[in-house]
């Protein structure tokens, strides 16, 4: 079965991104397909490569990057939510005249249409938020 996943809260602050990660891993292990993971609201902050969590804690962003690589996941960060919160890729940084970008490997920035498209294409859509 094809799942679409929405992550609506930021890393560490809320458990939502952890639960989403554990859910996606379990779904993939059972042979399900994960059509896309869409990061909205503060969820966009999961996609930063600048976080430096304590070494004895889980590395949320790195976990997602590794899982995406292993399973060819489509991790999409909402552009409108990301702009408000300061999450940029190289193209966006250039377009907005910013001198740095902070997106992590394995994530891409795109529009809200990707959320709707996911809802249309997935057999089940499930949101992890607050």
């Amino acid at each position, binding site marked *: 079965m094809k799942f679409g996943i*929405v992550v609506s809260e930021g890393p560490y602050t809320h458990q939502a991104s952890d639960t989403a990660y554990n859910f996606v891993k379990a779904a993939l292990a059972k042979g399900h397909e994960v059509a896309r993971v869409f990061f*909205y*609201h503060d969820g966009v902050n999961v996609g930063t490569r600048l976080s430096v969590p304590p070494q004895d804690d889980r590395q949320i962003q790195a976990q997602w990057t590794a899982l995406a690589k292993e399973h060819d996941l489509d991790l999409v960060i909402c552009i*409108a*939510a990301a702009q408000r919160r300061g999450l940029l890729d190289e193209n966006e940084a250039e377009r907005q005249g910013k001198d740095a970008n902070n997106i992590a490997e394995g994530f891409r920035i795109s*529009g*809200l*249409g990707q*959320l*709707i*498209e996911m*809802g*249309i294409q997935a057999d089940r*859509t499930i*949101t992890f*938020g607050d």
Partner: protein
Amino acid sequence: MSEDVKKFLYVNRKAPYGTIYAQESLEVVLIGAAFDQDVEMAFLDDGVFQLTKNQDTKGVGLKNFSPTFRALGDYEVTKLYVEQESLDERGLTLDDLQDIQYEDEDDDWAEKPSIRVVSRAEMGKIMANQDVVLSF
């Protein structure tokens, strides 16, 4: 109904301004309207506060996004279900909410109210009649 058309419900249970969920919910609805899906919105619990009249955010410095609700008809989002019990608990009536209209193309473009007040029991049935439920 075509295979490609799904029923989307946007569930709004939070008050506006204290958090951004109400505003970013509306942004999804506007984008989603371009996809020719069957779209409905649900307002219950504190979500009914999103629709109040006369919101004036100058004093707090936030952007007033409440006029956008009145534009939903132009995007063919015409079903805004508001829960009666949620209004009652908060001492609100339909008069306290914005007058949101749409033009009904099946009835000679007559202007009709988009807000439909429903009971809690009806709201439960509406939620159960969807393909995709997005919560804010």
